[in-house]
C-alpha cells in the first residue's frame, strides 16, 4: 500500500540512453511518488519505450541512474516479482493456449494469484483452450495484462498497450486495467501517444518529447499551475518573474499564451483562464518540437 515512507516508484537522475549515435533519452531526472497512475505521453519516437524498457531492466542506461521501487530495475527474482510489464504489441506465445499461459505465470511467479487470473480470463470471455496465436489483438492484450497482473506486482508498466486496438477493445482494456490496479492497490505507468487514454485513467503525467522530460507532475497540480492568457501582442513578453511562458500563439491582434506559475501569484496582467490537459500537453510538445528544429 502506498504510504509516505515507501520509495518513489520511479527515480531517475541524469538518465541517458544512446543507441549508437542516436540519443533516445537525454539527461532525464524525475521522481514519481507511489500510488499513482502515471501517464507517459509524447510523440512517436520521443523515448517512451526506452524509458519503460529501462524501468523493467530490458535495457541498460548509457549513463545516469534509475531506481524502480527503490532498487536497480530487474535486480533479482524478488524485484522482478514486484514489477509487472506489458510490452508493446503485447507479445504472447502463439503455440500456447490461454490456460498454458496461466500455467507459465503460475510456474514462474511465486506470488501468482491463479484465482484472480482465472476470474479475469472468464470475465473478458477468453476460452482457456484457445491457442494464443489465434486470439484477436484485443484478446491478446487482455491475456498479456492478466499475466502481468496475476503475479500481484506493486507496479504495473504498460508500453502503448492499447495502441493497436480498435476503440471498443481499447475501452474494455483500459477499464480492465483500472480494475486490476484498484484490486492490487498497485501503482501503474502507462505510455501512450493517445491523450484520450491518458486523460481517462491517469492522475500523474510525464510529458516526454525530443528525448527529454518536458513537464511532470500530478494532473491536479499541473492544471492548477497552468493558465491560458489572452493579451495584445507584445504584452506577453513582459511577464512578471516566476511566470514562465510555455507557448505563445499569435492570432492577428491578440496573442494566446499558455503560462506556468503558481496559481494567481504573482499576478498576471490579464485574467487567467484554466487550460485543458490536452492544451497543456500540446503546448509542451509544440515547444519541444520547435526547440528540436532550431
Amino acid at each position, binding site marked *: 500500500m502506498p504510504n509516505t515512507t515507501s520509495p518513489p516508484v520511479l527515480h531517475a537522475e541524469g538518465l541517458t540512453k544512446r543507441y549508437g549515435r542516436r540519443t533516445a533519452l537525454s539527461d532525464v531526472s524525475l521522481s514519481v511518488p507511489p500510488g499513482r497512475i502515471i501517464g507517459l505521453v509524447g510523440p512517436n519516437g520521443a523515448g517512451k519505450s526506452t524509458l519503460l*524498457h529501462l524501468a*523493467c*531492466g*530490458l*535495457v*541498460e542506461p548509457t549513463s545516469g541512474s534509475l531506481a524502480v521501487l527503490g532498487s536497480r530495475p*530487474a535486480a*533479482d*527474482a*524478488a524485484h*522482478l*516479482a514486484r*514489477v*509487472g*510489464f506489458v*510490452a508493446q*504489441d503485447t*507479445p*504472447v*506465445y*502463439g*503455440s*500456447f493456449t490461454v490456460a*498454458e499461459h496461466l*500455467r*507459465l*505465470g503460475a*510456474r*514462474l*511467479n*511465486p*506470488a501468482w494469484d491463479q484465482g484472480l487470473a482465472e476470474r479475469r480470463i472468464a470475465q473478458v470471455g477468453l476460452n482457456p483452450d484457445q491457442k494464443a496465436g489465434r486470439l484477436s489483438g484485443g484478446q491478446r492484450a487482455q491475456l*498479456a495484462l492478466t*499475466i*502481468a497482473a496475476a*503475479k500481484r506486482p506493486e507496479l504495473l508498466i504498460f508500453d502503448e498497450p492499447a495502441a493497436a486496438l480498435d476503440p471498443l477493445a481499447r475501452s474494455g482494456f483500459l477499464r480492465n486495467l483500472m480494475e486490476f490496479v484498484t484490486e492490487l492497490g498497485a501503482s501503474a505507468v502507462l505510455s501512450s501517444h493517445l491523450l484520450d487514454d491518458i486523460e481517462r485513467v491517469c492522475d500523474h503525467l510525464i510529458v516526454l518529447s525530443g528525448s527529454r522530460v518536458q513537464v511532470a507532475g500530478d494532473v491536479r497540480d499541473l492544471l492548477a499551475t497552468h493558465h491560458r492568457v489572452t493579451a495584445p501582442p507584445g504584452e506577453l513578453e513582459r511577464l512578471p518573474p516566476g511566470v514562465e511562458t510555455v507557448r505563445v500563439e499569435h492570432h492577428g491582434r491578440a496573442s494566446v499564451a499558455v503560462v506556468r506559475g503558481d496559481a494567481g501569484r504573482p499576478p498576471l496582467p490579464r485574467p487567467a483562464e484554466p487550460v485543458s490537459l490536452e492544451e497543456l500537453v500540446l503546448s509542451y510538445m509544440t515547444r519541444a518540437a520547435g526547440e528540436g528544429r532550431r
Partner: protein
Amino acid sequence: MIWLSWRQFRVQALAGAVALVLAAAYLVYLGGDIRDAHDVYRSKCGGRADCAEPRAQFRSAYESTLLFLAAGLGLVPAVLGTFWGAPLVARELEAGTHRMVWNQSVTRGRWLLVKLLVVGAAAMVVTGTAAALLTWAAAPFDEVVENRFGTFEFGARNVAPVGYAALAFTFGAVAGLVLRRTLPAMAVTLAGFLVFQFLFPNLVRPGLMPPERTTLPMTAQAINQARSLGSIGGGAVVGGVRIPDEPDAWISDLSPLRTADGRNLGERRFNACLDSPPRTGATGTFGDTAVCLGKLRLHVAVAYHPADRYWAFQWAETAVYLALSGLLAAFGLWRVRRRVT
C-alpha cells in the same frame, strides 16, 4: 522454468525422438547383420593361417556403409545445434516474447541456464544414444579392422559425440543470443561447427597428449608394406606405414623419407629409384623401386600414440568439448544479464 523449457521444446523433441527411433531400428538391424557376417568370416578363417581374403571380404562388405554412418553421426550434433540451439533464444528475441518471459519472477540468467540444461541434455542424450548404438553395431567390424583412431571412426564411437553435441548446441544458442536472428544464427552454427569439426581432429586431437617418438628403418620389406610412395613439395613421402611392434598405434605425424645423416631424401635420388630402378626381378608392391630405396638405408621419424591410449583420448576430447561448452554457456549467461538490446 523446467516445465516452460520442456513445453517450448516438445515439438522439436518429438521430431528428434522419431528420428532417433528410426535410426535405432536401422542400427539394430545392421548390428545383427554385421554379427552374422562376422560369424561367417570366423568360420571361413577357422584353422587357416591366412585370413587375408575373408577379412578383406568382410571389410569391404561394411566399410562404406559404416563410413557413411560415421559421417552421418558427425552431422547429428551440427544439426541439433542448428535446429535446437540456434532458435532457443533467437526465436524469442525475434518474436519479442522475451519482453514477456523476462518479466516473470525468474532472472534472465536462470531462464537461460535452465533452457540450456534441459535442451542441451536432450541433445546429448540423442547423440549419445545414436553413438552407443553405432558403436555396438560396428563392434565386430572395429575388432577386425582395427582403425579406431580413424578421423571419422574416432568421432563416431563411444563418448566423444556427447561432447560434440554439447558444444554444437551451446554454440547455436549463444550465436542466436548474439545475432538475435534465427536464420543467420542457424547458418552460422551449421557452418561454424562443421569447420570446427574439420579442424579439431587435424590440428588439436594429435596434441591432446604428448606423442611417443621413434624412427622406423625403411627397408625394402618395410616399403612394400606401405600403402603409397610419392613426392610432395620436394620431400619423398611414404604413406600407410605401421609400427611393427605396435600395429594398432595411431601415427599422428610422419616425416618424409630420410637418409642416415638425418636429411630428407633428395628428390633426384628418389625419382631415380622411382623411374629407373636397377632391374632385380623383385616382387612385392613396389618391386624394383623398393629394392632400390632399401639400399639407400632410409628411415622415417614417427610420432605416434599407442593403441592403449584410445580411451584416454576419448575422455580427453570429450572433456575439451565439454569445457568449451561451459565457457560458451558462461559467456551467454553473462551476455543475457548484461547486454541484451
